[in-house]
């Protein structure tokens, strides 16, 4: 189990950095989907089955679809793309920033001897997600309903042709 988590974490980091650095927008969106899928894998391994399902279907699926359709709407010449947006040049520093940040964080963690003891989930095994979501988080459910309403209104407003 640990190995899968390590692997997924690695994939997530690499795919995330690639999503930022790749000059092609389509590839970048796909890299984002891969990062999202890796996150779904981690969630699944850690026991968050429903969250994993949502992450993979909604984030990895729906967001990629939205991004790809937005990209295809705005198709400019493939040769022109890297020149106009200069992504290669603008993003060149990111790996160094991340390596420096990573080394620093690892050093701090080792030096301070950080531990994050993972608690036993047994105490809460009885409370299934459905119970939590419907019995404890009703406020959030109402919030979600209103968010979706707002989203529907927003889509109607933003994607309507000029009247």
């Amino acid at each position, binding site marked *: 189990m640990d190995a899968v988590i390590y692997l997924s974490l690695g994939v997530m980091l690499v795919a995330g950095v690639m999503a930022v650095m790749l000059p092609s927008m389509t590839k970048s969106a796909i890299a984002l989907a891969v990062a999202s899928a890796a996150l779904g894998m981690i969630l699944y391994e850690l026991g968050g089955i429903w969250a994993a399902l949502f992450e993979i279907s909604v984030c990895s699926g729906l967001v990629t679809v939205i991004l790809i359709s937005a990209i295809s709407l705005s198709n400019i010449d493939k040769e022109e793309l890297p020149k106009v947006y200069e992504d290669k040049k603008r993003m060149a520093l990111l790996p160094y920033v991340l390596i420096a940040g990573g080394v620093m964080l690892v050093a701090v963690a080792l030096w301070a001897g950080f531990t994050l003891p993972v608690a036993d989930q047994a105490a809460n095994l009885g409370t299934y997600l459905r119970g939590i979501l419907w019995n404890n988080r009703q406020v959030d459910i109402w919030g979600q309903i209103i968010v979706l309403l707002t989203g529907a209104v*927003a889509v109607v*407003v933003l994607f309507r042709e000029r009247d």
Partner: protein
Amino acid sequence: MPILDYITVSFLVIPLIILVLNNLFSKQFVERINFKLVGVVAILQMALAVAGFSLLSAAHWEDYRFSLLWDWTMEEAGYFAVNSLSLVFLFCIGFVLLVAVLVAKATVEQRKTAFVNLVLTLLLGMNGMVMVRDLFSLYVFLEIVGISSFVLVALFQLETGLEGAFKYLVMSSLATVFILTGLAFVFMQTGSLQYAQAWADWLSVQGTAQLYTYLAFILLISGFALKTGVVPFHSWLPDAHQSANTAVSILLSGIVIKVAGIYGFIVLTKLFPGFPPVALALRILGLLSIVVGALFALRQTHFKRLVAYSSVSQMGYILLGLSSGTTLGFLGAMVHIFNHATFKSTLFTNAAALSAQAGTLELGELGGLEKKMPVTGFSSITAFLSTAGIPPLAGFWSKLLIIMALWKSEAEGFAAVALLASILTAAYFLRLQKKVFFGQLPEKFGAVTEIGGSVKFAELMLSAVNIAVGVGFPLILLFFEGRGLL
């Protein structure tokens, strides 16, 4: 008390019903009545807030819990709740909404249905934000406020509006990342995000885990600072507030930055009273905002942009009031929230009048309009005097309370700078008055007349409120004293 149940539930149910009605019937029919309906919602909200406030204080209750269609008495169930703080906020929301609708009648000509839909979701989000009792639910409703605001700014799909909306969206999503990361660390250590949970335990954490505490504070404070638009997180605010329709600017500047940002700070300071780093951070942010916001406002050439920078500056006073950690400072901040809602709405209403009658908001092109637009000029002057803190107008009292609170909590330096910064406020508003209302009247404005209808009514109403609160403030002080708050 079942009547309080009806009152509290209606803060969420009435906007939902109007939202459904607004989309149920044909567009022609709806567009004739929907602005009036929103106006009624706003007035109703103010009345209900007052009624709820009196009932709550008559019963001497700390807060009143309620729910929508579920049983909150169940074990560990979530719930909404109102206390006097949320009722004050609900009143302010209703007040600003009323002004915005009055102005929108003149400024919003197309897409009325969409405008009303978004205003109602914005209202739902803000009402929800002040009534939830859980940090995560606070975030959920914060996002509703955010999404509605972005789309309202972008509503008419003009280049400027879209640009302002995109900048606002990017900064807001950064704020979301900060707030959620902060919440993750809070959640990691407490296992719950409900306000009622014992937070004091969390603050007494020792050792390396304390690092998480400070990290969470830094992240939460920068997140809410981004939402408030205080310096140095202010870059989006003038853009969004300038480019939006003026009715939307009134909502954004008058109440959204306070509910989305300042209310978050209030929750933080209420949850962690007397935690020195929070107070210090608020003080520094507040002072920076006051001075830098005013300096930026001095060199603006666009009416709405100047007023937006003035908002940045005034938010600083509210933060300073909160930072004192005393009841006096808190009262000062609350009164300043209401006063700022009044005078900022006045100024944006003036902007609507000017752009409707004179056709421009560039300060360089305007001038000498005092004779032509007496009501606009007069309300603008009351708002300016109030903002600058000239007695006996409303702004003077709230600034006085804030500065007194700072002085008493041994932050004399901050109090002195806040006092001196009033001169800067007066300076940029004097410049505004001089450029717009005094001086030579350009020839092309020879035929300009005073605005009529709802905008004029809003201007008169706001000036009346401004003066009445200022003159009657001793009575409010007596009320505070009667409740043992001073």
